């Protein structure tokens, strides 16, 4: 029986995980030169285009040692972006070891640390790897020291490689064999296989990716999903090579896929344990922490006729991305749509892009917000907590006893010279300072507790621009805290526009209200009547602008040579008008619904 090593590659975003995976695929002959392209495992178009990994990718390879022995590598390449850190946590459970990759020119970053801690929590063997040593800016000594401080390893433990040139990769593969513990191979125990990922195939149902921890999974066997209690038959089993390669059985220690005609993703949840119907295991493997959406936004079809298409598209997306949640909602301004929950802004952006690209549905999104907990004033009664994920559903100020909002702990790593602007940014965002830690090579780790709502907007961009791109950032949810929050409404021509309501801290409401009114004045077209634009908290109008009525717009010339151009313009305007939303008698262009997002902090 061949030896097996199950391991993953973890790192901060862009530190070269997928490129390193490319080299492993190459060196193990898993892929021919002809088929090869960069970041081979990033098989979604979006991943290739953006050059980032969004989903984890598992792959089986056969490594031939210099001794001639063959070892099976089950590798999982993971994403580096903070929004997808749950993908990392899933991958870790299927492995005994992790390559912790650090870009030798960038050094240890926020996600290096958070991913390392996740791996340590799972008792994984960590192999520290300095990558991109080919770069002229690589600082091997300095970054190695950072790693030594972080992990407490020796300099000799740290591998030095270049995913680009392939330098050090052979050695790294040997080290994987030597250092990563072999998995337990107890094939006779009752079956326990952990589902660490799944894909949906229209024809075959769920394709479930499993790591067999104990026992043996055989083709045709009756299988039981321990959490959901659902029973299926294992119609097909196989290994995850560049293609799916069917096999007769998967034994303890192996990684592969199972297809059992599972039509609903709900039946085969990631994190669940598969056992055998005939000889079930006693207990499931402890599952994952459930991933919870952090950011919510309304998704509305631009063309109101496309509601059903949007629903179908969301269903389809959810099949491969259980972290996406949605439920129908209606807006006076936007009609029928959905309130969707995302892991973060990048996740939201990616879902929007996929809707547009894969399903060709044009959507309007409302400004993203977090989820609030509201305690109502109800004298004499047991206080009930209301969960609000749509600003327009926030009750009247007078009825509210207290509003709680999610807080996160942000860990920011930065070169020391940018501490000033970064702290200023955090203070502006209602942050509370926790600690500051000086590290090797003039780097500082700063921790702040911040309201999540202040981070979902352009916090990351501001952080980057305040530090010339050097600061990196990671966050964890901590708890809900009471804050002085109010609902800021926008009224156009005296009518409230629900989709433009937002929840803000009282101290920031006035400035925001003024800016919003100004911005809307620019975005809303002139009407045949004057349109008052107001921002209000409850009944108090706190800011006001007026869009003047149209006085003269008729084109001067319309002769033989103008007709065509004028008609084409009219056709374009017609399209534009169709895409506008009406509240009362006021036309609102789509951009207006994201007006808040396009405002700077300080103007």
């Amino acid at each position, binding site marked *: 029986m061949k030896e097996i090593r199950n391991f993953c590659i973890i790192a901060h975003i862009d530190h070269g995980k997928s490129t390193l995976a490319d080299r492993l695929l190459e060196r193990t002959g898993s892929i021919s030169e002809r088929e090869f392209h960069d970041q081979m495992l990033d098989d979604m178009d979006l991943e290739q285009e953006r050059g980032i990994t969004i989903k984890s990718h598992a792959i089986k390879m056969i490594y031939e040692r210099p001794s001639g022995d063959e070892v099976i590598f089950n590798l999982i390449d993971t994403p580096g972006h903070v929004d997808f850190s749950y993908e990392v946590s899933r991958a870790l459970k299927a492995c005994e070891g992790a390559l912790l990759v650090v870009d030798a020119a960038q050094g240890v970053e926020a996600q290096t640390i958070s991913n390392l801690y996740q791996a340590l929590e799972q008792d994984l063997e960590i192999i520290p790897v300095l990558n991109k040593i080919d770069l002229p800016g690589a600082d091997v000594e300095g970054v190695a020291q950072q790693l030594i401080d972080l992990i407490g390893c020796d300099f000799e433990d740290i591998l030095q490689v270049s995913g680009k040139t392939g330098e050090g990769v052979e050695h790294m593969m040997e080290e994987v064999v030597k250092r990563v513990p072999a998995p337990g191979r107890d094939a006779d125990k009752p079956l326990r296989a952990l589902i660490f990922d799944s894909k949906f195939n229209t024809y075959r149902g769920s394709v479930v990716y499993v790591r067999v921890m104990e026992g043996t999974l055989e083709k045709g066997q009756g299988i039981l999903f321990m959490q959901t209690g659902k029973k299926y038959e294992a119609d097909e089993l196989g290994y995850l090579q560049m293609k799916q390669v069917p096999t007769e059985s998967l034994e303890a220690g192996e990684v592969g896929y199972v297809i059992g005609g599972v039509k609903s993703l709900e039946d085969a949840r990631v994190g669940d344990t598969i056992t055998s119907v005939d000889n079930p295991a006693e207990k499931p493997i402890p599952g994952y922490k459930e991933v919870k959406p952090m950011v919510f936004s309304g998704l509305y079809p631009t063309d109101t006729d496309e509601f059903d298409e949007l629903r179908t598209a969301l269903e389809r997306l959810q099949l491969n991305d259980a972290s996406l949640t949605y439920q129908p909602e209606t807006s006076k301004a936007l009609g029928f749509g959905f309130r969707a929950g995302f892991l973060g802004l990048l996740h939201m952006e990616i879902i929007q892009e996929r809707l547009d690209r894969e399903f060709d549905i044009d959507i309007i999104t409302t400004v993203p917000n977090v989820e609030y907990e509201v305690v109502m004033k109800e004298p004499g009664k047991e206080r009930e907590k209301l969960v609000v994920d749509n600003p327009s559903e926030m009750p009247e100020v007078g009825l509210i006893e207290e509003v709680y909002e999610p807080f996160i702990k942000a860990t920011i790593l930065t070169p020391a010279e940018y501490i000033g602007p970064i702290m200023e940014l955090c203070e502006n965002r209602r942050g509370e300072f926790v600690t500051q830690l000086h590290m090797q090579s003039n780097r500082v780790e700063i921790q702040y507790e911040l309201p999540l709502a202040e981070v979902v907007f352009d916090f990351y961009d501001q952080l980057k621009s305040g530090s010339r791109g050097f600061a990196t950032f990671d966050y964890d949810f901590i708890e809900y805290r009471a804050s002085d929050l109010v609902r800021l409404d926008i009224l156009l021509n005296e009518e409230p526009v629900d989709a433009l309501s937002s929840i803000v801290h009282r101290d920031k409401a006035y400035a925001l209200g003024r800016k919003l009114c100004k911005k809307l004045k620019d975005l809303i077209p002139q009407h045949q009547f004057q349109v008052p634009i107001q921002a209000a908290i409850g009944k108090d109008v706190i800011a006001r602008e007026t869009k003047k009525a149209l*006085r*003269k*717009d008729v084109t001067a*010339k319309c*002769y033989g040579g103008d007709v065509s151009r004028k008609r084409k313009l*009219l056709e374009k305007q017609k399209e534009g008008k169709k895409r506008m939303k009406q509240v009362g008698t006021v036309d609102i262009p789509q951009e207006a619904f994201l007006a808040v997002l396009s405002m700077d902090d300080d103007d």
Partner: protein
Amino acid sequence: MAGIYIHIPFCKQACSYCDFYFITSLEYREQFVTRLLKEIRSYRGSKFTDEPVETIYLGGGTPSVLSADQLHQILEEVRDTFDVRVKEVTMEMNPDNVSAEYLNALLEIGVDRASMGVQSFDPDLLEFMHRAHDRDEALECLRLLSETGFPTYSVDLIYGNPGQSTDCLKQDLDELLAFDPPHVSAYSLTIETDTRLGKQYELGRLDPLPDEKVARHFEMVVDRLAEQGIQQYEVSNYSKPGQQAVHNAGYWSHKPYIGLGPSAHSFWWKKGKDAPVRWYTKQDIKTYLSGDRRQLIEETEQLTRRQLADERIMMGLRTRKGIAVDELSSRYGYDLNQRQQSYLDQKKQEGIVKRLDPIQLTFEGLKIADALILDLVSMQ
């Protein structure tokens, strides 16, 4: 009944607001005329010559940079090629080109309507517009028009210039009305991209007149002209009774026309016969002179009924005549729906629509006609 438009793409200098196609290299004139004669001739025997031609329009550019002799050759070629039963031969001209002699020669070769590019009598405005003529020439050309007894003529005026006061406009109107012109085309200044003014505007060096001021100017033009019996019959066109421009009105009602020269548009639609089509030539003298017909066509549009209906509404609502509901339905297969009808009803109550059939706008409506047209066509 068809019209013929001939584009003469030469100007002495570039006016700051102008986005017509023209070049200032006058040395190409001769070659151009030769080429144009060939282009006219190329229509011989084609289906486009079956339709009697009632109007000819020499536009540009500045047709008056050509000699009367050259213009004579052009008109002769048109007469030899098409079935000309002409009612109106209009020629655009600029004040700096005309003399009594020239005007008389034009009369002789059959031009019977002048369209004079005066634009303003105000020296500062003329300079701002970068016109080639001065105040004296503006006055002189109008004097010459009456002296030579031109059967009819039109004068172009531009209002709503940045910084232009209502007094300044009033002055322009007074000076113009002293000549008692039979027809006036008064345009509110439009700042087009790719013009000098457009560039200045982009650079933030030009503040357009706010639209409420432009509206004031517009009202003043309409009122002053009306006082002298010169009635508005289209957004920018005013005339004494019976003096409306025949050729231009043809555009607004989808009469067929053939355009000749670079950047000229042609439109051909004959009921029950050919599918409606519009084509236009490139804005490029070199391509034009090369004579390569296929190279020259910039675009050919096959127009759907719906597009034509939109165009007809777009142009019809700009005119005093308006547009008859029946014409829309019989000629364009376009019936107003419920939403459109109630919209029009409501606008009638608001004093923006004057009549429901034919649909006509009040002056209040005319001022914001673009918005109304967009509203209306978007409902179907």
